């Protein structure tokens, strides 16, 4: 596996903040996802992320008629590595629930994904998930771009 520092788990809140262009969250979400798309970072998530984001989209107004198909394609992007929820994942998630402040089973699945893929960070906008600490894994908000961004609109 690659260096642990080059891989991380991403929570559905980051994808939704990007799709939703949320104030205060959009820029860093976009930068994190762009880093993954450019191969500067391996982003992982439990497969449930696809269901969560799709369910969120049902409560959203697509800006064009092909929104659903584009969202499906977005969630199948090869820069977003998904991990199946199997027995090992479930066992680790149970341990996360037992030993940490994780409030829900889905939160625990994100942390368990980090264990499975040997990542240290779960990027999330949820400050509740940010406080979870397990086996050297911690939640954190997206840090911003790893590469300097070009100011294409500057003077």
């Amino acid at each position, binding site marked *: 596996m690659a260096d*642990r520092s080059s891989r991380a788990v991403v*929570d*559905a*809140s980051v994808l*939704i*903040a*990007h*799709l*939703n*262009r*949320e104030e205060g*969250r*959009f820029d860093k979400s*976009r930068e994190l*996802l*762009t880093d*993954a*798309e450019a191969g500067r970072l391996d982003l992982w998530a439990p497969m449930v992320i696809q269901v*969560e984001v799709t*369910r*969120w*989209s049902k*409560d*959203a*107004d*697509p*800006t064009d008629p092909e*929104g659903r*198909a*584009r*969202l*499906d*394609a*977005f969630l*199948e*992007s090869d820069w977003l*590595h*998904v*991990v*199946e929820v*199997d*027995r*090992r*994942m479930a066992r*680790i998630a149970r341990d996360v629930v037992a030993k940490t402040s994780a*409030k*829900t*089973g*889905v*939160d625990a699945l994100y942390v368990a994904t980090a*264990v*499975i893929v*040997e990542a*240290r960070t779960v990027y999330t*906008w*949820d*400050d*509740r998930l940010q406080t979870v600490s397990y*086996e*050297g894994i911690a939640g954190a908000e997206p840090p911003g771009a790893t590469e300097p961004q070009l100011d294409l609109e500057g003077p």
Partner: protein
Amino acid sequence: MIAPESQVGVLYDAHREGTALLTFVINGESHEVTAEQFRTLVDVAVRIMKDASQSEGVEFTVESLHASAPTIVWQPQVIGAEVDVNEAFTNVANRIDEGVTMLEADEGVPDWMAAATANALYQASSDFGEGSVDGVSFNTNGHARKLTRRTYRTLDRVLHEKTDAIGSVTGTLVTATLSNGPHVTVKDEIHDRGVLCYVAKADLRAAGQLLGERVTVVGKLRRDYLGRPLQVRNSRIEATPEPSRVTVAEMAGALTGPESVPWLREQRGG
């Protein structure tokens, strides 16, 4: 700096008052331990220490060697910026402590231990208690945790453990054959490994038409102890074309919906 409270007991507490040293002992008389055994067991010890310290920003150097019982004393050295060596050592030591306890108590393989390390330890421990080596120990200031033949039995069980459940594999169909029962091989795109998918003989021809295509196979899925798919029985194979591509930039603000965090909290509960 004071190291955090131990998660697993007192085994490594003593180092806080002295130098952080991790001692590895091969429990056997020096003159009875062959060069090959020594090489193998040190390799396993290094793998274990490397796995246990992977995120800590330290590496171990040899502080001293003794031959009375083959012994190596390791000392952590900082390799990352802003690393508290005592805290890192405590974390590593606790992980090894907990891992050895798990292995000896038949509670499974610690999650931090890589599959290659578990396999190497399995091979190396096969002679524990039956030849010149009883086991190996990791210890600090006299407190020891020993890997014995019980560890071999645990690994023998766990590494051969397989689970069956209804599931699916998605990847590229790379072979279709009648040899050893009609089956196709799908290169699983998550684990990048070939998975044997057994089909009814009458369905093999249709499956063969999908050679080189992206497919999803649903059936009775067998996985190894790491959750990697091994084979699928009673397979049903469906073509699964690659979805069209969209970029991150194209999806910026593509939908307008409820705010992410409150919406997710409501959905997840807790």
